């Protein structure tokens, strides 16, 4: 029983991570990923793609109870493959085509024959984000203040 649950948790973690990276993919990355999918599956829309809002919450004092900070645009889609798998795509912003493609990749990663293609794509996205984050962090680090104390001689 526990083994089954662990396996399911691991696959949920993998799916969560993949969906988070798909949300941060550029339109070009998703388009290129779609070109690489062969053969192209039959995809049916289930919901959307559509744009709406999410109320972004913060925490009082930074770590206290939740408050409503303000909204952000979100685009989302749900699709179903002919084989039955349902995929969900949701990401910040107005790009509904990106949401639709993200949903397709979420569905495809549930198919053994497409899983590796999807994983390779999200690993590339992850690599690109890491490079961007590191560059930004290093540029910020260069603005770090190095305090030093002026030593005054007594004599």
């Amino acid at each position, binding site marked *: 029983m526990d083994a089954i649950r662990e396996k399911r948790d691991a696959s949920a973690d993998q799916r969560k991570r993949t969906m*988070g990276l798909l949300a941060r993919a550029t339109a070009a990355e998703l388009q290129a990923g779609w070109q690489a999918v062969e053969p192209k599956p039959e995809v049916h829309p289930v919901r959307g793609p559509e744009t709406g809002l*999410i109320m972004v919450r913060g925490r*009082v004092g*930074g770590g206290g109870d939740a*408050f409503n900070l303000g909204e952000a645009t979100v685009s989302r889609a749900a699709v179903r493959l002919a084989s039955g798998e349902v995929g969900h795509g949701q990401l*910040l912003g107005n790009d509904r085509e990106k949401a639709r493609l993200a949903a397709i990749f979420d569905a495809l990663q549930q198919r053994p024959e497409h899983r590796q293609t999807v994983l390779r794509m999200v690993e590339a996205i992850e690599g690109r984000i890491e490079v961007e984050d590191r560059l*930004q962090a290093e540029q910020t680090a*260069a603005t770090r203040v190095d305090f030093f104390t002026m030593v005054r001689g007594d004599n």
Partner: protein
Amino acid sequence: MYVAVKGGEAAIANAHQLLADRRRGDRSLPAISIDQIVAQLGLAVDRVMAEASLYDRELAALAVRQARGDMIEAIFILRAYRTTLPRFGMSVPVDTAAMKIERRVSATYKDLPGGQLLGPTFDYTHRLLDPSLLTDEPVAEPLRRPVDEGSMMRVSDILSGEGLIEGDGQMPQDHVPGDLTREPLEFPLNRDLRLQALARGDEGFLLALAYSTQRGYARTHPFVGEVRIGTVEVEMDIPELGFAVSLGRIQVTECQMVNQFQGSTKTPPQFTRGYGLVFGQSERKAMAMSLVDRALRAKEFGEDIVAPAQDEEFVISHSDNVQATGFVEHLKLPHYVDFQAELDLVRRMRAEYETRAEAEKTGTMREAAE
């Protein structure tokens, strides 16, 4: 009776066409693109997002362009747009402790863990107009330095170790965060609703109120415990999946203002806190918000309410610039009938006044004659 309510149609259509022309301006110049506004007027875009209470850089930039740079008009347009969209749900509260930092300074601790990171700040610039920006001179790449791995501990957590600072804000158990976009405000408010109102409040109004507290109208003895700017992950629960999924990152500015508090009969002397959290990069707004948040907590700490910045109904009712501009600007719309009524009234009062004055004069003359 309503008169002259028609006849404006052609004038309005022509005015809109003229507006479109003036907005475009000199056709020999290239039109400014949305991408350019996002990239080069980023802080204007951020202000529009914060006060429209809608995080979307492209739409905010479009609003700035459409409004010809009139910030409140741009905020108005973006607010109007958000009402056309369905709401999909709430995010998991963003975790500012896990922020990818772009700037972080503390005025209370010189050597705090993670250090003082100045980031892309206007501070320490000379505030001299820069002629190099008159032309498109090449801009050098920023310098890089290896990153000091380690946590960017929040300043409030340093003080809380000693028990000298109040904790993060707690609401009563099972409290559902209020949402002023869904329910009309009823005073007094809880702190969560006040923070939502302040986060979308007018920067200039909050800045002036914050300044007033420093000048003695509800002094709070503030120190900037920490200001941090950076990106945080936005996650939403997907009920069909049974777990929360990241939707991407947004940039926010957070300010922890630390205030000396002498204590009351119920509370020992300690530091209290004001909190500011704003969409985008907006340090001035986050700092002003945290000062006003602290001032508005006067009742909670048993302080006398003596100044405008402590008056919740005054502050929150007047902080929204879309409401404010609507009510002030509506005065220019036709009030022909109202004014006609006032004119009649003033004429009548004037006639009565003159009759009375005349009567008094005649009376005085008669008295003098007798």
